[in-house]
């Protein structure tokens, strides 16, 4: 019993140290971002620099959304002489290829790339397409994204700084009304970008390149080794390689692009498990090199480790819960030492979690996302659910590492825009006065009979063409 209590105390102290460190970090980010009078967003430079751009859109069975993203990109106000859109049909078995071909036939700036074999995963598709890209800057969009008209200019602006190797924009869910989970994820995305990314960028830490709504210099990508096709999170992998090679990553909060978030827990669970596995892979691959990185400041090194190890907090938290329960219900809690143990138990339970909620709340406050604010307490379910999913992913990852098996497979995220008008887009930017970089192709040209313009402003592909 004494040994068990000793082990529990060690586990609890370890948990408290780790979670307190994360709590301090999140508090700092939230307070810093809230009080930030002037963010570094380089918006005054928009249009100043217009290099040749290749927009890569990898698509694997994306017929539900392919036409929307391509139409929105075609409608962007970037000089057509300086842009090419590489629509990548990545081993699709549905009508994605036909939609791409139709766009390529209609618009000279759209180039259809069909990839029928080779390794799976987004990284592999990007690697394949990057070889055919002629732009100085490679911009990336996932197929479910709907960039605004000025998006390309916004994202390209920071590249006027020769030290900037990559740029990241803000992701804003458009289907937050679709389900409770989607609403909760809208809050989460807000915290991640409005608070986390912006604070990290302004503090000179490690803003992440997210692999979509972002761009990278073609020459820099080549210099750091290109896309890692083995990684489940090729974006995180590239982020750390760029930073270790001394390149800066710029975050542009103003470059808002709408996306679909998972509407069901099964889809979300797969997504978060992929992220957890990918991040942990990056931790194992890079931590040594990262800590010795000669271009990195001590603050960047610490923050980078926090980012790479962020999914470890879930199993650590579970460990702490179990340890504290044992301590709480044993005779140990009757003496004074246990008072502090119990205090710490409650402290990290409330304080650690509060830090995350402070971030969520602060982002909602800045976004004036009034309706979603009331969903804040329900994020506890999301929190519990994510903890479970991450523990499962890391368990599979480590057990797979030991026994040579595991779930190392790129799960494509399910799409919900099915042509019945269910895309809950807010037209001009969320109904709270937030323009999102221009409207999404208002008045734009549809690709003939292939596309139908839905009342909500989105273009529906052939499968959705049963609308009146």
């Amino acid at each position, binding site marked *: 019993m004494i040994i068990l209590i000793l082990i529990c105390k060690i586990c609890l102290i370890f948990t408290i140290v780790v979670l307190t460190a994360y709590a301090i970090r999140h508090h700092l980010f939230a307070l810093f971002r809230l009080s*930030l009078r002037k963010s570094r967003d380089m918006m005054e430079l928009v249009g100043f620099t217009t290099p040749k751009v290749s927009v890569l859109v990898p698509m694997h069975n994306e017929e539900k959304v392919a036409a929307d993203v391509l139409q929105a990109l075609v409608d962007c106000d970037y000089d057509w002489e300086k842009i090419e859109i590489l629509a990548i049909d990545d081993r699709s078995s549905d009508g994605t290829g036909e939609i791409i071909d139709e766009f390529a036939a209609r618009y000279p700036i759209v180039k259809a790339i069909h990839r029928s074999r080779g390794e799976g995963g987004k990284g592999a598709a990007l690697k394949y397409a990057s070889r055919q890209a002629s732009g100085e800057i490679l911009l990336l969009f996932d197929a479910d994204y709907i960039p605004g008209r000025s998006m390309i200019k916004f994202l390209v602006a920071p590249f006027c700084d020769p030290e900037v190797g990559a740029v990241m924009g803000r992701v804003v869910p458009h289907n937050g009304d679709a389900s409770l989970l989607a609403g909760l994820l809208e809050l989460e995305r807000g915290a991640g970008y409005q608070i986390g990314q912006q604070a990290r960028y302004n503090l000179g830490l490690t803003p992440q390149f997210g692999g979509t709504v972002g761009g990278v210099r073609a020459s820099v990508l080549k210099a750091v080794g290109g896309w890692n096709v083995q990684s489940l999170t090729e974006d995180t992998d590239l982020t750390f390689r760029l930073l270790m090679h001394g390149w800066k990553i710029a975050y542009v909060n103003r470059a808002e692009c709408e996306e679909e978030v998972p509407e069901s827990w099964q889809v979300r669970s797969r997504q978060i498990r992929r992220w957890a596995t990918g991040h942990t892979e990056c931790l194992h691959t890079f931590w040594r090199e990262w800590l010795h990185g000669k271009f990195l400041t001590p603050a960047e090194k610490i923050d980078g480790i926090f980012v790479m190890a962020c999914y470890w907090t879930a199993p650590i938290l579970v460990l702490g819960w179990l340890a504290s329960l044992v301590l709480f219900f044993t005779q140990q809690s009757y003496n004074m030492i246990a008072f502090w143990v*119990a205090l710490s138990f409650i402290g990290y339970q*409330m*304080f650690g979690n509060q830090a995350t909620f402070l971030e969520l709340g602060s982002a909602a406050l800045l976004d004036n996302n*009034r309706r979603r*604010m009331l969903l804040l307490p329900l994020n506890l379910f999301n929190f519990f659910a994510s903890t479970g999913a991450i523990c499962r992913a890391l368990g599979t990852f480590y057990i797979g590492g030991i026994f040579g098996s595991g779930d190392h497979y790129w799960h494509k995220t399910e799409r919900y825009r099915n042509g019945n008008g269910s895309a809950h887009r807010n037209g001009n930017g969320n109904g*709270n*006065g937030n323009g999102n970089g221009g409207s999404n192709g208002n008045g734009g040209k549809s690709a003939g009979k292939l596309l139908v313009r839905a009342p909500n402003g989105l273009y529906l592909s052939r499968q959705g063409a049963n609308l009146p």
Partner: protein
Amino acid sequence: MREPDRNQGVMRREFIYPHRSVRSFPLSRMRAWVALGTALSLSSVVAYLGSSLLGAHDRLSWWILKVTRIPSLGARAVEIFPFLGSITVPDISFPSSRAIPLRTGVFFAICVAGLIALYRKIPLGRSFLTFPLIMICAAGAVIVLNPSFYFDSAMYEKTWLRGEILVWILLPWVSAFLFVLTLPSLAAGLVWSLWTEAYAIIWSAVRLAFCLGTLHYTGILFLPLLWFCFGILFDLVYVLLFYSMALHFSSKRSAGERKS
């Protein structure tokens, strides 16, 4: 035909609110000092008046039990923490699981079936529901495998109050960050902070009375489950609820509303 705009010539907002990517709520030094002072003073008051607050808390629980006609066997003195001295808590009678095996079994089966049904129906809640399931199963296992296990209402109240008093001491620091420091209105932040502290004490008494009432009717089967669901975790829920409400009202005032 399109209806004429009644607000023609009038801006829908009184001012153009800056785009969200560049908004901020600058924190003044004064605000930081007020937050620190509030947290420090509230924590000190709770620590200083700890035994009185616990006494008031128990009187309230006792009153609820009386109103709901749950009989008590009398009062028992328990020591929460050495520095707080002894606190008198109500001693509630409850049936032994050995005396009512069938009823306990039925309660157990209904609870487990209900949790499993929820588990299957709400995928988002599965990880959360795992904890209550483990707790009810563990309690059932203890009752079956260790019939001599003894746990009474005083022990439960002691565990409960030990957690709650720590929450009350810590809560002002959480409130300082969530309300005083970050809400656009300082006055609103202070009011929310004080309200949350008062609510924590009153609401804890209500929850404890509910748990004791359940103990009286069903025995010890549900105690771990109730402690998990209505104990410290529940404190987190109402703090977040108040935070979300405070944000909701604040944003309404600070950002204004469209006129059409």
